[in-house]
């Protein structure tokens, strides 16, 4: 009976803190993730490829990639796409995001990140940050929502430019003229040009 009481108390406390700290948790989550990423990037003993893998492992759980993929196509296109192509599209889109953003992340080593006060709308929390390096400064907004599995990022805005909106209009452009197959081919071909760029030694300067 006593242990049951403790259990009740514990449940009560944890629910209360979850309710009260919604916003706080998303912020703390983001902060801890960014710190973890920074320490990986600062680690000089790690190879580029190993760094990428570690960063990906840290960051992946806080993104809702499948929702992001859906949003880039929107209600206008998503429902018309056959199931197996939805899956293929999601995989290719996630690969694009990972390939590209993980590559870019390696360039950020001496940056300082400032957190500004977050904005809460319904079950969403938008966390504005500012990335400051030696010569440049830009704003980055992380958009979280509360999913069944905790806080997840569904969009990122860099200097007011939303990742979802940008891909949405590009995908819409392709789908307006062609089919989902054209889009899938475009997404695949992009990878090929990408890998040639990655091996280009000039790219590392």
């Amino acid at each position, binding site marked *: 009976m006593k242990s049951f009481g403790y259990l009740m108390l514990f449940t009560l406390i944890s629910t209360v803190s979850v309710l009260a700290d919604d916003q706080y948790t998303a912020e703390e989550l983001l902060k801890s993730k960014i710190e973890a990423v920074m320490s990986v990037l600062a680690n000089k003993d790690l190879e580029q490829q190993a760094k990428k893998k570690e960063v990906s492992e840290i960051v992946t759980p806080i993104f809702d990639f499948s929702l992001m993929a859906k949003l880039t196509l929107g209600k206008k296109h998503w429902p018309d796409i056959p199931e197996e192509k939805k899956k293929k599209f999601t995989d290719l889109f996630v690969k694009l995001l990972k390939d590209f953003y993980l590559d870019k992340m390696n360039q950020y080593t001496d940056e300082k990140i400032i957190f500004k006060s977050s904005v809460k709308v319904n079950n969403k929390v938008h966390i504005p940050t500012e990335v400051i390096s030696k010569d440049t400064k830009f704003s980055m907004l992380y958009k979280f*929502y509360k999913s069944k599995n905790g806080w997840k990022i569904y969009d990122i805005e860099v200097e007011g430019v939303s990742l979802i*909106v940008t891909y949405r*209009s590009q995908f819409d452009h392709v789908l307006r003229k062609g*089919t989902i197959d054209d889009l899938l081919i475009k997404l695949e071909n992009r*990878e090929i040009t990408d890998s040639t760029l990655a091996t280009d030694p000039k790219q590392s300067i």
Partner: protein
Amino acid sequence: MIGRPLILFYVSVLVMLFFSGCAHRTVKDQTGPVELKNVSSVSPIQKSSSPEKVSPELGEKDDVFDEFEEEYKGKSIQVADPLAPWNRLMFHVNDKLYFWFLKPLARGYTFIFPGVIRTGVKNFFRNIFTPIRFTNSLLQGRSTAAGHEFASFIFNSTWGVLGFGEPAQKKLKIPLSDEDFGQTFGAYGIGNGFYIVWPVIGPSTLRDSVGLVGDRFLNPISYVDPISLAVGIWFYDRLNETSFRIGEYEAIKEAAIEPYEAIRDGYIQFRKAKVAE
């Protein structure tokens, strides 16, 4: 006044094109044979997580989808692009100009001049552009920002030795705003008009182009006497600025599957955020 009906004409043509495009789509929308290779290159992390994660969520999260759709419906910014053929051409011209000319030059410049000098030059130009930011802060009724600009100009021109240093920002933490006439017009509720890509200058809109003319009057470089020298100085500023931004354009292009659309819509979003600031 002559321009307005013309714009309306362009817009209506665009609307018509849009609808005819939709009609074509339904005709073309048959699932043909797919020529896709195996996605064996997908990373192992993603492979293990996607089967259990992606599929169940697809079915049950539709109410979530609706809610987010709401958010993006209002936000998807469409800009009229009646000059698309010209714009696309200029996009390619600027692209080549960057890769064949500006980028190699900026690289060489970066190689010769250390960061300290380039930063100094950057600060110098930013300081002499104060009239643009000061006036437009005032025009938008932002007296604090205008005051900051003024104070910063005084400090940086003297203490910062002609603006090469920026003690007003480094020591006194005076923030600078990034205002221009395009943003002032935006703050007054004037829309973008349509999208236009200028050679060398790059992406702009009708509103922002008119704004650029206004900015020119407040730009001290415009008053440098032989015009060739003014153009030279303008270009040098551009080169110096580029030396800090090598890789940015490449990154945007690389992440895009339709670079022209990505940059067009990116520019519109970027300016919209600037106006809202």
